[in-house]
C-alpha cells in the first residue's frame, strides 16, 4: 500500500461496472478508475464494491439473524449493486425489498434489532437517511442508555455518503460530522477494500448501532488486498485509525475518499522533500485521538481533510483534540481542509471548487511546513 499513487481517470457514464437503472435518475453513474502503481503489488485486488458484497455475504452466511433491508436491495440487486447475488442466495425474507419509506423501514430495522435480529439497513444514499434520522438518533442511539443496558441495538445503517458527482445539493453531502456528534452511535468510514471488508464485518458483529459511510465514487476502485483480509474471520477493530503512510514532517488526517487524495498529496510532497504521514481514520466515532496525537507529537504539524462542511466538522474536532492534548508539540497552525461552506452546486467546475482537491492538501501541507511560496 505504501507509496501507492492513485491516478483517477474520470469517464462519464461508460463505466463497465455501470450500476444504474434508467429509471433511477437520482443516481449518477459511478466512474471507473484506473491505477498506476509507484510500487509493485503482487497480491490480489478487489473493488470496494466486491469487498462490501463479500463481507455482507459472509456475515449473512455465518449468522442467520443478519438480514439486509432497504430500497431496491433485492430483485434489483442494489441501486449500486452492493447486495448483488444476495437475494438468490438468502431469499426475500433475508434480503428485504422495502417500499420507499425511510422513516418506516429504518424504524422497523431498529425494532428488529431491539428484539434480537441484526439488521443491515441500506440507504440508497445517506442523503435519504435524513428522512429517518429520528430513528437513527432517537430510537437506535439512545436506547441502550435509556434502558440502562437492557436493550442493545445491533444494527448497521449503510450506504453511499459524501459528495457524488453532478447530482446537486440534495444528493451530495457528507454526514460524518452529523452522526459523529451523537453519543450512542459508532460511525465508520472505510477507504480501501480492506477497510470495507474489515469494518463492515466488525460493524455487523458489533452490539451497537453503527453508521457505515461508504463512498459512491470509491465503489468501482480496486485495491490490493491481502489473503488475511480475504479470510472470512477477518475484521477490523472499531475506533482504531490506520497509518496509511508513515512520515515525519507533517500529519495528514483524512477519511473515506479523502484518504486517497491525501496519499496522492503525500506522494507529491515527497518529491519536494516533505515526508507526510497519512492517517486513515476509519472510525469517526469513536475517534482514535491517541493515534492522531501520537502522530502530531512526532511530526509537529497537522492537516485535516474532509469533504464535509467546515463548521463543527470532523476536522474541527480533530483540531480541538490536538490543541487540548498536544498544543505544546505544534510547530505551526493547524490546517483544516473541508468542503466549501455552501450547498453543493451542480455545475462541474463549481462542484470541483466545493470539495477538497489534491493540490489543496499539498498547498496546506507546505504552508504548515513553512514551505509555501
Amino acid at each position, binding site marked *: *500500500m505504501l507509496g501507492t499513487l492513485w491516478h483517477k481517470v474520470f469517464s462519464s457514464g461508460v463505466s463497465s461496472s455501470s450500476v444504474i437503472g434508467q429509471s433511477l435518475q437520482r443516481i449518477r453513474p459511478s466512474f471507473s478508475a484506473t491505477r498506476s502503481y509507484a510500487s509493485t503489488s503482487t497480491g490480489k485486488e478487489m473493488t470496494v464494491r466486491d469487498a462490501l458484497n463479500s463481507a455482507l455475504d459472509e456475515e449473512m452466511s455465518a449468522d*442467520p439473524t443478519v*438480514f439486509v433491508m432497504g430500497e431496491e436491495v433485492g430483485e434489483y440487486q442494489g441501486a449500486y449493486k452492493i447486495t448483488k447475488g444476495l437475494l438468490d442466495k438468502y431469499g426475500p*425474507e*433475508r434480503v428485504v425489498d*422495502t*417500499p420507499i*419509506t425511510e*422513516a*418506516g*423501514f*429504518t*424504524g*422497523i*430495522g*431498529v*425494532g*428488529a*434489532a*431491539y*428484539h*434480537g*435480529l441484526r*439488521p443491515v439497513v441500506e440507504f440508497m444514499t445517506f442523503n435519504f437517511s435524513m428522512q429517518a434520522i*429520528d*430513528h437513527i438518533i*432517537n*430510537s437506535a442511539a439512545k*436506547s*441502550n*442508555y*435509556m*434502558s*440502562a443496558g*437492557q*436493550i*442493545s441495538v*445491533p444494527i448497521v445503517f449503510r450506504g453511499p455518503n459524501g459528495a457524488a458527482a453532478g447530482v446537486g445539493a440534495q444528493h451530495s453531502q457528507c454526514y460524518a460530522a452529523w452522526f459523529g456528534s451523537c453519543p*450512542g452511535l*459508532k460511525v465508520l468510514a472505510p477507504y480501501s477494500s480492506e477497510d470495507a471488508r*474489515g469494518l463492515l464485518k*466488525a460493524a455487523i*458483529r*458489533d*452490539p*451497537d448501532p453503527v453508521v457505515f459511510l461508504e463512498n459512491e465514487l470509491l465503489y468501482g476502485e480496486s485495491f490490493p488486498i*491481502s489473503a*488475511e*483480509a480475504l479470510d472470512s474471520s*477477518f*475484521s*477490523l*477493530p*472499531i*475506533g*482504531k485509525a*490506520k497509518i*496509511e503512510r508513515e512520515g515525519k514532517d507533517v500529519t495528514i488526517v483524512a477519511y473515506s475518499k479523502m484518504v486517497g487524495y491525501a496519499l496522492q498529496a503525500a506522494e507529491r510532497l515527497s518529491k519536494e522533500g516533505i515526508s507526510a504521514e497519512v492517517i486513515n481514520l476509519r*472510525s469517526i466515532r*469513536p475517534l482514535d485521538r491517541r493515534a492522531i496525537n501520537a502522530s502530531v507529537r512526532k511530526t509537529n504539524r497537522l492537516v485535516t481533510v474532509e469533504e464535509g462542511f467546515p463548521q463543527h466538522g470532523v476536522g474541527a474536532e480533530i483540531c480541538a483534540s490536538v490543541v487540548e492534548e498536544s498544543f505544546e508539540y505544534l510547530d505551526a497552525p493547524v490546517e483544516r481542509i473541508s468542503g466549501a461552506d455552501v450547498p453543493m452546486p451542480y455545475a462541474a467546475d463549481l462542484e470541483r471548487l466545493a470539495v477538497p482537491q489534491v493540490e489543496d492538501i499539498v498547498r496546506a501541507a507546505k504552508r504548515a511546513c513553512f514551505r509555501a511560496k
Partner: protein
Amino acid sequence: MASSFSTLKTIQPFCFSTTTTRSQQKSTLPTTNSSFFGSNNKLHKSFNSFSPSTNRLRSAVVAVSDVVKEKKLKTSASTSNLLITKEEGLVLYEDMVLGRVFEDMCAQMYYRGKMYGFVHLYNGQEAVSTGFIKLLKKEDCVVSTYRDHVHALSKGVSARAVMSELFAKKTGVCRGQGGSMHMFSKEHNLLGGFAFIGEGIPVATGAAFTSKYRREVLKEDCDEVTLAFFGDGTCNNGQFFECLNMAQLWKLPIVFVVENNLWAIGMSHLRATSDPAIYKKGPAFGMPGVLVDGMDVLKVREVAKEAIGRARRGEGPSLIECETYRFRGHSLADPDELRDAGEKNHYGARDPIVALKKYVLENNLASESDLKAIDKKIEELVEEAVEFADASPYPSREQLLENVFADPKGFGIGPDGKYRCEDPKFTQGTAQV
C-alpha cells in the same frame, strides 16, 4: 388483494369497517358544513344534541354489542353466558385499579416535587391497557408512548420499579436513565415508551417483523404478537401509514391499538383530521379496522382477543380504534382549559373502573368485599412503591457514562460471547491498526 378481502370477511361479525357499514357510518360522522367541528365551542353547544363524539360512541357500542350478542348466543347453551370468569374479572379489576391508583399517586408525588419533567397520566384509559395487555403472554411485546406507566404495569413491571424510575432512582426499571416517557423492560418485552409521535410504531413493527423472521427464517417455534399503542394524533403522522402498509404487506403479527382520547394537547382530533374515523384507515391498507368503546374493558377485551388471535395465527395485523378519554390534562403541566366541562362529565360518568365494578357485582362474579380487598391491596402496594422509591439511592456519579454502548470499546463481541477487546490476538494480523 383477494386474500385480504377474504380475511376481512372472516372477521366480519366483529369488524364493521368494510364497505357495508360505510353508509351507516357516514350518518354518524359530523357533517362538514362547519369547519370548526372539534373546537370546544362546537362541542359545548352541540353536546346534548349532536355531538360527534357521542354519536361515534353509539356506533361503537352497536358494533361491539354484536360481538357480545354473538358470544352470548354461542355460549348460552353452555353453563354461563358471561364474558369473563370470576378470576378474569378480578385480574382485570386489579390491573385497572392499579393503573388508576398509581397514576393518582404520581400526580401527588409530582406536586410534592418527588418527580419532575413531563409526566403524562393514563387516568380514564385503563380499559385499553388492561383489556389488551392482560391477554398477552410474557414473550409478547408492547411498544408504548410517552403515556407509558400503566402499559408497563399491565405488562408486569413492578410498581416499585416504575415508581423508582419516576423518582429518578437507581432502583428504577431503567436505573433513572429513562424517566417517565421511556420505560423499557427487556424481561417483560416492553420495548419502550417513545416520546415522539409515531416513533414507536415502526419499532413495534420491527419487533413483529422479528417474530415472523424467527418463525420463517430461523424456524423457531414462535407465535409472539406485538402491540403498538399510540394516540389519535399519531394517526395523522406519516410513520403510521408507512407501517400499516408494510405490516399488511408482510402479514406481520402486530395489533395497532389507537387510544383515541379525542385530544392532542389542546388540539381536538376532529379539528386535526380530515376523516376522524381512524379505524377506517385499516381497510384502506387491506387489514381489518375496528372501532370499540374504549371505556368498557370487556368490549375492548373481546375485540383484542380477536385481533391478537388473528396476529398469533399468522393472519396479519389489525387496526383497533379504542374510543377513550383522559380524565386529566395532557400532562401534569397542562392546565387543561380547552376541553369542555360537559364533555369531561360525559366521559367521567363512563369511568371504566366503575363500569367493570358494576358488571362484576351485578353478575355476582365477586362481592363488594372482594373488590374492596383489592382496592386495599393496591393502595398498600402503591404506598409501598413510593416508600421504596423514596428510600432508594439516586444514581451514582459513575453511572453517567455507563450504558452509552453495549460495547464501549467498539471491538465487538466474539463468537465465544466475550468482548474482542479483551483478546490481545484480535488486533494482530490486521495490517497496521
